[in-house]
């Protein structure tokens, strides 16, 4: 998989939002590569910048308050940040598609679900209306919904079914890259399990590259091959599923695992990460995690840690990484 062609390469991405009296540093120098056919899990807490990265790839960072201040995003070798809106529109929904978190608000309540899928197909493909309808019906079947339900409205579907419709819509033009923003968070666990299973099967069938945004390490374990952990707008750890789950190294990643109640353990108290994520309006000199880190030293607060890469490609943004005893 290492040799697969990169679909997206993000280099040194910075995104800021401007409020009346402050600048919010949402994404601070993110480098990330997603290769063909790969599912990359982007894990982090609320406000870490996960969704902003996805929106930047899709070119829909809210304007004028949001701004990509620095960096490049290459989609199949082309810097899409330099594209004109007209060219970007032909990529969006066609080559790059997004599944939003909440299926209840992602669908138009007064349009039949089939027509909503057909619309995307008709827009990006030079085919007849009848062909587009047929294709939309096939998409419904692909996600396990009978084609007869093409003519129904969103309110006639359950939450899990609506999310399937949203997935069908995203996959309708056979995109090369799928941005899935917490696609199962709003669903019940039994329904979540069904949707995840379906996404795994579809990915094998269609070989789509997926950026899976989630806060749930359980979801990551069940669907991803690569994992990037993001904290305060920076990637703090990146590696294969095995590297992250068997050898979590960054203190924040360790903290995330320690915060989870485990089904198979008898421990009486969780080990939470103390404190909270730093205020994104304040620029921090050193390591952004230092205030919550039990290993933090003076050096950590003074010097911003660079990425340390192990010989087998496991990346850690921590001064302790690679040193004795770490």
């Amino acid at each position, binding site marked *: 998989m290492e040799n697969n062609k990169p679909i997206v390469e993000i280099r040194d991405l910075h995104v800021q939002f401007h409020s009346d009296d402050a600048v919010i540093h949402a994404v601070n120098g993110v480098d990330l590569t997603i290769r063909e056919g790969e599912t990359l899990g982007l894990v982090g807490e609320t406000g870490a910048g996960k969704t902003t990265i996805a929106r930047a790839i899709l070119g829909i960072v809210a304007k004028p308050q949001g701004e990509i201040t620095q960096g490049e995003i290459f989609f199949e070798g082309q810097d899409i940040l330099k594209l004109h809106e007209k060219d970007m529109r032909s990529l969006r929904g066609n080559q790059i598609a997004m599944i939003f978190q909440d299926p209840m608000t992602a669908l138009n309540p007064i349009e039949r679900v089939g027509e909503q899928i057909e619309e995307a197909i008709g827009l990006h493909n030079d085919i007849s209306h009848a062909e587009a309808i047929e294709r939309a019906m096939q998409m419904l079947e692909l996600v396990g919904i009978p084609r007869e339900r093409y003519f129904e409205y969103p309110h006639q579907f359950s939450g899990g079914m609506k999310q399937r419709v949203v997935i069908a819509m995203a996959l309708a033009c056979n995109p090369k890259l799928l941005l899935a923003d917490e696609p199962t968070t709003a669903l019940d666990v039994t329904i979540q399990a*069904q949707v995840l299973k379906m996404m795994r099967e579809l990915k094998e069938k269609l070989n789509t590259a997926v950026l899976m945004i989630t806060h749930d390490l359980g979801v990551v*374990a069940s669907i991803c091959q690569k994992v990037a952990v993001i904290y305060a707008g920076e990637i703090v750890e990146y590696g294969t599923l095995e590297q992250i*789950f068997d050898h979590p190294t960054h203190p924040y990643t360790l903290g995330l695992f320690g915060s989870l109640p485990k*089904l198979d353990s008898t421990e009486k108290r969780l080990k*939470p990460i103390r404190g909270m994520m730093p205020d994104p309006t304040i620029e921090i000199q050193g390591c952004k995690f230092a205030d919550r880190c039990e290993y933090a030293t003076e050096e950590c607060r003074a010097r911003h840690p660079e990425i340390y890469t192990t010989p087998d490609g496991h990346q850690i943004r921590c001064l302790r990484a690679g040193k004795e005893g770490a």
Partner: protein
Amino acid sequence: MSAPLIEVRNLKKFFKTGRGMLHAVDDVNFTIEEGKTLGVVGESGCGKSTLGRTILHLLDATDGQILYKGKDITTPTRKELSALRHEMQIIFQDPFSSLNPRKSVSETIMEPMKLSHSMKKQEMIDRTKELMETVGLAERFWGTYPHELDGGRRQRIGIARALALGPRFIVCDEPVSALDVSIQAQILNLMLDLQEQRKLTYMFVTHDLSVVKYISDDILVMYLGQVVEKAPSDELFKNTLHPYSKALLSAIPVPDIHANNELVTLAGEITSPIDPKPGCRFMARCPYASDRCNEPQKIEEILPNHFVSCCKCREINNL
């Protein structure tokens, strides 16, 4: 032995809808001993929140009995109800919508004390300071408004407010669901500390099975208004007997890549809780369903202290 702190007998709560009676809570029985935690799990719409709210009289029960320390409190008078509010409180799910945006932190925590007319002003101020310290809110937040705070701190306000009158019993309705994992762990630990210090009794309502296992002594699994399985926490996870509980447990994504858990996928549509048929409500999705399941199901003690409502339970589990 003294009476359990909470006892619920054949509790029912129905809602009238345009299409018929919605059976939100249908014939639920359980007891909670003082100082213990009962976890109530189930998916959205199973009636777990309605159950908590009915016990607290935020909703009126349709039928059945609620006993507090052995005394029937199903239909309290106004005076009795206001006395009960000192004993029983609730922590809500959403720390964003359960706080009044126009009341500061201290005003919010003081509100129950004011309403109870039982304390002097200085007493209330001292008590509020003490509560803020207990739940880990710095005194500098005294005059702060909820919108200035993050979810974890807001939930701490909700907890302080619930503790204001020194209750014995607290219904915790998904108190950590809206929080990030690192903050979730802080709040769960706080709740366990408080339980130890104050001998509190909790009813912990949640859809998150790993949280419920971590915090509960006993667990109740609900499906469409009914209890399908009830057992001590460890026992339930070790010996899961009801087909629905099995499916629910297998569906949790485990943050462990070496875990080898077989997913029990549920097919079929969820039965409507409006005027349901007398048989097993899980039948339509159950892989073991047969004709017998059309009969009303009785909850039985299958193993010591382990209750299951499934006529095929022994057969499925080779018992």
